[in-house]
């Protein structure tokens, strides 16, 4: 079995994904069947955000990946040019 921090990090990822799955499933699939005056609606944003927020998150992720690739490519070229 993996040790210490590896196990903690792995189980942390699993827990995070379960939380995300539960919250998102309730938001997208269960809430439309719940009456509009039920208290649970207090904990969820309007349903449009259930599409907008993942879209924004995907764009931010692509931005990070692109920036990372750009920085790494630039660093691998510039030592050659300095000489």
């Amino acid at each position, binding site marked *: 079995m*993996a040790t210490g921090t590896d196990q903690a990090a792995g189980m942390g*990822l699993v827990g995070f*994904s*379960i939380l995300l799955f539960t919250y*998102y499933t309730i938001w997208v699939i269960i809430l439309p069947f719940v009456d509009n005056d039920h208290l649970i609606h207090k904990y969820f944003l309007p349903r449009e955000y259930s599409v907008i927020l993942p879209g924004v998150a995907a764009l931010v992720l692509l931005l990070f990946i692109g920036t990372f690739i750009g920085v790494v490519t630039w660093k691998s070229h510039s030592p050659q040019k300095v000489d």
Partner: protein
Amino acid sequence: MTKLLEWVFCVLLLGVAWALVTFDLLDLRLPPIYKELAWPMPVYLLVLFGCYSIATIGYRVATFNDCEEAAKELQTQIAEAKADLRKKGLKL
């Protein structure tokens, strides 16, 4: 038919079904709950796939088979090999 064509065909079929329900292209006059559930479906399936990926990676990191004695043994062998090569004249 190639695998790629099969997948593309399936995705197209599901896409057409989704578009029919979301944009009411055939004027089927389904109960509004169908439209409410259908339109976030592509994003929902993507988030579902993302959650499954994160869970699988996390679980496999947590249950990875570390071999601690083998690792220590390997390190001592590396040290021995380096000492031996230095003695024989190789500059490390």
